[in-house]
């Protein structure tokens, strides 16, 4: 069962209201678990359910399949809160503005995690960007008077943010990236403190736009690889992949897409939905039909939760097997990923990662003796990937490490 905070619904209402696909399962979404707002603040410091990856909760919230009746209920539930939430405390209403996010309301101690949680509720905002915005809020709320103090404060904040959700690679990468910028950019060292501070905040805010732009760049870069009449296999839902395909449609490319179902959260269905709106011929496959259809496929295009130092990717469960099948049939596997997903991780094998767990609904009761593999993602080694489309250019997997070395060392 997902726990989701009620404010998410407001977000979704502010943005495009999600339409109920046929596959929606209302019973997987319980409203009762949404904690009252004040309580949320209290336990926000603690990841509410360590057994479930917060990262995937957010994803589910963004991409999840929501029925209209559930939405109505949720709206009713949060209604009162949004009224009283006008006191400037982090309500979702102000999340659209760049300057928003002054999360630390009066009287309540500022918490970077709350801040982060507010930011990441925006469906279009990547987790790394949310993290950076949250850190910017830390700077804004900081009472530090020297760069050193500020650095320490930031370090603490980013550590707590990272500890809050160890499963999210882009959160970690975003924090690292920003910390890296603060501690390593010596341009700041020679400036007057306040201007340095405001410059940092400015950077952080720009980052949001940049992350949007990164997607555009990737979409443009990848157009050369999508040719007329090709069949593309996609796995799961990825905003970048969607952007790529959208751009291809705009460029009048004629292609068709196979979407995997993307169990357990059925994110593939959502992608299929989006693509259908663009009039792209789409076929939905169950996850196990990948090998069956692979001979018709011309290329595999996937997103990534994280790109690791070896050049491999960590992505939705099932990516690895798709890559293996594609590799054995000599089909190219392309990965679309923004560069802020590059993480200093080096998993040697599948088990060599912090597991991100996610409940799986099998539709039938599972006997308690039976174990369920609840890992949400797998690691695809670089030798099975052909190219990475990033905002830094089209890279071979081995270049990822170069970029990371340049960035972090």
């Amino acid at each position, binding site marked *: 069962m997902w726990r989701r905070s009620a404010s998410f619904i407001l977000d979704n209402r502010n943005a495009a209201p999600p339409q109920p696909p046929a596959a929606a399962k209302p019973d997987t979404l319980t409203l009762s678990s949404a904690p009252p707002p004040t309580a949320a603040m209290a336990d926000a410091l603690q990841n509410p359910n360590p057994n479930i990856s917060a990262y995937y909760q957010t994803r589910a919230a963004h991409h999840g399949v929501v029925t209209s009746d559930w939405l109505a209920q949720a709206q009713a539930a949060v209604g009162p809160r949004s009224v009283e939430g006008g006191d400037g405390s982090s309500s979702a209403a102000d999340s659209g503005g760049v300057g928003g996010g002054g999360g630390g309301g009066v009287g309540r101690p500022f918490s970077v995690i709350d801040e982060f949680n507010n930011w990441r509720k925006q469906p279009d905002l990547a987790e790394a960007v949310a993290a950076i915005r949250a850190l910017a809020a830390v700077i804004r709320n900081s009472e530090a008077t020297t760069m050193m103090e500020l650095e320490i404060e930031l370090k603490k904040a980013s550590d707590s943010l990272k500890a809050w959700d160890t499963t999210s690679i882009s959160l970690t990468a975003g924090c690292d*990236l*920003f910390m*890296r*910028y603060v501690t*390593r*950019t*010596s*341009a700041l*060292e*020679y400036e007057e403190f306040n201007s340095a501070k405001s410059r940092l905040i*400015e*950077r952080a805010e*720009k*980052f949001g736009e*940049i*992350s949007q*732009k*990164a997607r*555009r*760049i990737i979409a*443009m*870069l990848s*157009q*050369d690889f999508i040719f007329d009449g090709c069949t593309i296999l996609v796995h799961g839902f990825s905003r970048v992949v969607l952007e790529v395909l959208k751009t291809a449609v705009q460029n009048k490319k004629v292609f068709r897409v196979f979407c995997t179902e993307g169990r357990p959260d059925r994110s593939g269905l959502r992608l299929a939905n989006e693509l259908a709106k663009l009039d792209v011929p789409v076929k939905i496959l169950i996850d196990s039909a990948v090998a069956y259809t692979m001979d018709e496929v011309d290329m595999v295009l996937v997103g990534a939760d994280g790109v690791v*130092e*070896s*050049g491999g990717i960590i992505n939705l469960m099932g990516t690895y097997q798709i890559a293996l099948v594609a590799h054995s049939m000599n089909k190219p596997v392309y990965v679309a990923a*923004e*560069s*802020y997903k*590059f993480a*200093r991780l*080096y998993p*040697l*094998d599948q*088990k*060599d990662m912090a597991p991100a767990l996610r409940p799986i609904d099998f539709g039938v009761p599972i006997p308690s003796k039976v174990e369920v593999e609840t890992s949400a993602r797998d690691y695809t080694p*670089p030798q099975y990937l052909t*190219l990475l489309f990033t*905002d*830094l*250019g*089209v*890279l*071979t997997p*081995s*270049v990822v*490490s*170069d*970029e990371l*070395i*340049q*960035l*972090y*060392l």
Partner: protein
Amino acid sequence: MAVTSLAPRIGVRHGGWPLKLAPQVANEVAMARAGLSYNRKDHKSISIPGPFQTLAIPILSRSSTDRPSPDGGADSDDGSAADPHAAIKPKVRQVGFVPRNAPPEPPARSQSYPAEASSPPLSDSPAGNSLSPVMIPPPRHLSDNLAAYRTPAVPVPETARRRAGHSPVVGSYDPAESLLGTSSPAPSPPSSGRLIGDGEFSDESWLLRRSNSAKFASSFPGGGFDLTAVKAVSAADLASDANVKKTTEKSKGSALEVKNEAIPSSKPLKAKTTKSERRALQESQRAAKVAGRVEGNKSTAAASGRVTSAKAAKQPTQKKDVASAAPSVAASEKKGSDRAPEKDKKKDAPAPRMQFDDKSRVEKAKRRAVVNQTEARNRVELFRHLPQYEQGTQLPDLESKFFLHEPMHPAIYKVGLQYLAGDISGGNARCIAMVQAFQEAIKDYVTPTEKNLNRDLTAKISSYVSFFTECRPLSISMGNAIRFIKNRIAKLPLSLSESDAKTLLCSDIDRFINEKIIVADQVIVRHATTKIRDGDVLLTYGASCIVEMILLYAHEIGKQFRVVVIDSRPKLEGQSLLRRLIAKGLSCTYTHINAVSYIMHEVTGVFLGASSVLSNGTVYSRVGTASVAMVANAFRVPVIICCEAYKFHERVQLDSICFNELGDPDAVLKVPGRMDVNYLSNLQNRENLQLLNLMYDATPSEYVSMIVTDYGMIPPTSVPVIVREYRREQLLI
């Protein structure tokens, strides 16, 4: 180098990156279109001079970047360590995170990285015209007979036994005596030990034991191949000579002169030969060469594929070097001017290596060698270009000449003899011993009157290096260390007083040892232990001190794992490792490499050390490593190479043949202590028996899952990035 030809490609990713995100999308796309084809697999194996990063490694104090660096001028932008303004420029490679108005990065430098400061002309490697031996770190085997003595790094009794077994016992030599000698001062724990055993005793005992065998056992086995090789080489030389002539009539023989000048530098005592003497020498050498060529022409040279390939391999390097580097070197040498401009040129061209199947060169090298050695007779065809000597021919000679030589510093002498005897083995231990010997020598160094410290000391160091090379071919790590020291010397400001300069150098050396080896090891240990999980079965091969540290540390912090130690004859180094691991309470399995395919089933990770990691990701390590890595790869077991970054080298090697070290051939023939299986004991000099005791092999990068260095965990494809980004820093520290 191909740097300029890379320019367009640089534009795609590197040149443009600082504003990467900001520029119009259209631009990006255009660039990407242009660049698509570049971003192919091999893209990164070419070194692209990206903007230089001079950030300190995390583990090192940041202050190290703030040290003023003595060099300025042209490369002030990457010598950013030096001036605060350079430091202001953002050094962060900002990925996806740069606002439009970010200050643009200084343009990517088209020059390739670090200026190589070592001063080749002074070096005197056996190769006649070679540049500095420093630049040729790899295996050049002068004295290999030591192999037997280097034996397992095992505790004393073992060593003694083996040594006794192997030694060419003759005359008054008493193994027991040598045992006493070697063991008492310091058993020199080979893998973990980075201390130099104070080996006065052992030296003596070695002197003793070697004092017998024949001095000049033989000449080369002449053959068609040798002759053709000679031809090839001499042809190259002639060509270059012609070149030189063209450029200036005056410096007609400058190339050769350089070679000869190298000689005096190695033996400062010999003082300067007069110009006429040198000229005479040149003439005679040239005559000899021409003669050799004629001879070569006559012999039809059974032109097997190998021969031609050998030629091909040899010619380019030599031509290039002699033609380009030598004249400039000569010039700078003569004028005593600053050598800076030539540096780049020099380091681009790989220094020619001594080819030991080239008779005339070997003769030449021999003439000025301090250590006289005798070549082994039945050498394996494919490895004739590597030196292989009969055992026990050097020391008596050294002993007799002890007082004749130039005053070699005792510390240097001691370490050299320890190399020769095999008392110090293991990459780090050898490197530290060498560097510390240099430190001693520098402490006692006094600049001769009318000489300049920078130049004279460099010459001194070069002569020491050539002595070490004769004792045992340098390892790549040692080459890098020497390069560092020479660089430091060259960069000393002239205004510095002698004592200040000396203390500065000594502290630099200390820092090198500390940062590049000791702290680096700690960082590697920390990284590597994150890859050890409870329940793992870790396999290691041979005895690598860094792997040992990792295993011990992981055990210390309470990880539950088992260790499989794979070993191989003849060195049986694994036994010493095993002994220490067992002593610490680890649960171990010990087996020989023959069983590796069986044992690999249960293994979950392979940790290996390396003598060096080359630019294409090839791991150059103890022979047998490649087989272990291959088997592990076939079983889908991750292979983790642990190696300090100072052992990285920009060279590329595809096989284990061109550069390697040959061990004592008898070691493979005999099983010490087992008379019943010594069927071959008297056969070593048979014409139709060739023995090969290879010391190293090259593991292709496909078999390597990860390389753990002090810069973190990187894939083998990123070695050139580290080399590119940090070579400069490494030289400057």
